[in-house]
């Protein structure tokens, strides 16, 4: 069994509007047989945090195009994307790309 994982989730660029406008979430992912990866985190967020319109957050088993995912202040592409295994105290940011000026 993998131990519970405490992580910090942030939503920005408008993505927070899908979470009652709350930008910062300190959450603990429960103990489970295998380590938590980002793919499982997305499912957990949908089931536990997402308040409305899931199609604005996910597409298939990934985030929808136009949302950047950052793990510990780096583009998730540098970290293994969906396969990245979450560590205790990780910081995961979902930022919607702004279009405006």
């Amino acid at each position, binding site marked *: 069994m993998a131990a519970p994982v405490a992580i910090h989730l942030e939503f*920005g660029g408008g993505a927070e509007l899908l979470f009652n406008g709350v930008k910062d979430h300190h959450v603990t992912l429960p103990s489970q047989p295998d380590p938590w990866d980002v793919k499982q985190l997305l499912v957990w967020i949908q089931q536990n945090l997402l308040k409305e319109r899931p199609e*604005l957050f996910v597409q298939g088993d990934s985030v929808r195009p*136009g949302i950047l995912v950052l793990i510990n202040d780096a583009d998730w*592409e540098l970290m293994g994307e969906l396969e990245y295994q979450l560590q205790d105290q990780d910081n995961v940011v979902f930022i919607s790309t*702004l*279009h405006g000026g």
Partner: protein
Amino acid sequence: PLKAKASLSNEDIMRYSRQLLLPELGVQGQLNLSKTSVLVVGCGGLGCPLAQYLGAAGIGRLGLLDYDEVELSNLHRQVLHGEENQDQAKALSAANAVKRLNSTVECIPYHLQLSSENALQLIQHGKPLVSASALRMEGQLTVYNYRGGPCYRCLYPVPPPSETVTNCSDGGVLGVVPGIMGCFQALEVLKIASGQGSSCGQQLVMFDAQDARFRSIKLRPKQAGCAVCGENPSVTRLVDYEAFCGSAATDKCRKLNL
């Protein structure tokens, strides 16, 4: 193409004296600015301060592109225009305003929408793109096509669904937020054009105006498999930006060397 100046005139030396003092700029940096052309795409909330500070600093040529006309609801953030310019083309109004500030800058207004057809004439392929956006109380900035960093398509291989794209008329914006981001764009353009170099390549800079907090995050490098800038590009002409991302291209304000 712009002719390079061999030296600064007495008037140039007087006008730019306070920035010529900077070791980071100096006479060579100023001459570099004078031979640079910049295309400002969109003369709105970002493009106004961007054009204003590029013109003031002595950029050689400034293309000012916008298909729209000035409206009263623009004036809370589009500070190059005035009440008397309502219904005038933004590109023209912006060009006139920059001229009042610095008549030595060559200003070229383009009263049109950027499309895949005219972009090929206006934009030189592979030049750095200083892109910013601002909405509500937030801003973002990235320098694309710069020193091994990604192009727009590397970062967003699939366009966002158009129903997820919010613009200023839907979401609102505090005018000074694009003000800050447009000035920030001008800073990075000036650093690139003068030869000092930008520190924002392969970075996303995010600004939260409510907390007055900036934060930078590291982006992926240029992607070998990118359809535009990769090793086997499948997109060899400019894609229609609007078709590609489903938002009005003029909502964005960007800079491209000609």
